């Protein structure tokens, strides 16, 4: 213990003495850590946002395929599905996308049963202002979409539907807390949505199935598949996995780019960063000459490099945190999320906890320390006389 303390003190002194090496290493490590942590923080935050919502998703979504493509689904099998054991409710949903060429924006149109009690309760919870929609032509918009269209409450806009025009009146907007879900949404009653999306009566976009025991999703799915052989049935788990994969793919791509940058950086700077310069060789020679064992030299070196790595990595992580959660990741968010006409205000919640912080730290510190120990070990096994002469 006393020995370790003395070696740590010596290592701190060494880190201080070799200011140039310490600083350049710490800065380099901070940059690397910053890159990795930013990607990780952003993807993790998006995932945690998704997890928040996942439990509210329908257990199964049933959708029809025609010619291998998603198509409208017929409502005639509704009672048959509802009578399957374990199915609590089946709900035909009318929703879809609406592209406005003039604004090159693609909006999500959602039709809801504005008379249902549960819908009214949910709506009143998530609407910022205005009244609940009810009558034909009344819509609720996402905040950024309303701003994008330049609409205020009670304003109206006329949009083309096929050859006709449809007048929509803004009666309310969604709260910004749910902007991540609603920024591109136009919510209206089902009849309007059918008209808007040209969904004929008796058909729906898809069917949402609610189960009494979500664990039996696969059993229910098999039975539904027997009723509707051409349907595709998506369970919530698959959706979660798909979602995770989306950001794994993008995060992985970013990570890959960072990795190649990191590797080229290491190849270029390897010797300077982890190598043992002539001055350091001589110093190791002095230490061995005055009676240090190879192990002592290595432990001191290990402490020194650990200290440097921590000094670099922690600011890197902190900077990444500030960049992602305070500055909202300008630059990185675009790459990770993709291009869009409407960007919702990115309100991200960090998923970082002490455990994750430590893992992140170790991911940087351990490889670096291990890598830089090898050249030190190779030097330290030489005899002191040779090291001091500058030979060997």
């Amino acid at each position, binding site marked *: 213990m006393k020995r370790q303390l003395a070696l740590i003190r010596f290592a701190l002194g060494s880190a201080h003495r070799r200011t140039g090496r310490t600083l350049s290493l710490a800065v380099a490590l901070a940059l690397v850590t910053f890159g990795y942590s930013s990607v990780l923080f952003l993807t993790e935050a998006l995932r945690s946002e998704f997890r928040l919502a996942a439990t509210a998703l329908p257990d199964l979504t049933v959708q029809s395929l025609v010619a291998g493509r998603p198509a409208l689904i017929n409502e005639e099998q509704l009672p048959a599905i509802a009578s399957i054991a374990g199915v609590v409710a089946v709900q035909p949903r009318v929703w879809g996308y609406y592209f406005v060429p003039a604004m090159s924006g693609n909006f999500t149109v959602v039709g809801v049963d504005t008379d249902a009690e549960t819908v009214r309760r949910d709506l009143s919870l998530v609407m910022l202002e205005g009244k609940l929609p009810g009558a034909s032509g009344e819509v609720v918009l996402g905040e950024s979409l309303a701003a994008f269209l330049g609409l205020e409450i009670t304003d109206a806009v006329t949009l083309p539907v096929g050859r006709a025009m449809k007048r929509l009146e803004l009666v309310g907007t969604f709260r910004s807390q749910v902007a991540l879900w609603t920024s591109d949404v136009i919510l209206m009653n089902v009849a309007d949505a059918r008209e808007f999306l040209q969904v004929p009566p008796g058909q729906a976009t*898809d069917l949402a199935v609610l189960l009494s025991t979500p664990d039996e999703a696969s059993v229910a799915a098999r039975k539904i598949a027997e009723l509707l052989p051409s349907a595709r049935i998506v369970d919530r788990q698959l959706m979660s996995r798909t979602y995770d994969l989306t950001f794994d793919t993008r995060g992985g791509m970013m990570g890959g780019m960072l990795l190649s940058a990191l590797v080229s950086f290491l190849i270029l700077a390897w010797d300077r960063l982890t190598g043992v310069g002539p001055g350091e060789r001589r110093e190791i020679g002095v230490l061995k000459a005055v009676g240090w064992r190879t192990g002592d030299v290595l432990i001191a070196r290990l402490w020194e490099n650990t200290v440097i790595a921590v000094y670099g990595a922690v600011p890197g992580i902190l900077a990444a945190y500030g960049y992602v959660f305070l500055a909202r990741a300008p630059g990185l968010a675009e790459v990770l999320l993709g291009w869009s006409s409407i960007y919702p205000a990115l309100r991200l919640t960090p998923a970082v906890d002490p455990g994750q912080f430590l893992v992140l730290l170790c991911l940087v510190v351990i490889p670096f320390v291990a890598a830089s120990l090898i050249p030190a070990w190779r030097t330290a096994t030489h005899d002191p006389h040779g090291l001091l002469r500058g030979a060997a």
Partner: protein
Amino acid sequence: MIRTWPSPTTRWHLAWAGLLLAGAVAMLVDAQVRRAAQQARQPEVQSVVRLLGVADLALSSSSRWLRHPSIAEPGAPFADGPAILDNDPAGAAISPPRASERGRHSERK
């Protein structure tokens, strides 16, 4: 005379390490506070998901085509597995070429 503890060097290190520790603690506390705020907003989020039935966040490119993975086409080329849903049908960091939008425009007229 020879006693060197705590030397200016050590003091400098202690200060820097303390600063980093304080930063880390501040970060973790901030994260905890934000997570609590997120939990507090869970009822709203679940309401919205129940209303819209969407799985995806309305984030840029995906939301153009993919507010709901069930709408994505199965068997898209180059997917990670043949049985898996295409997880990124749009997936571009840059906007599509202008010409493609013009074509759409005239088609609609």
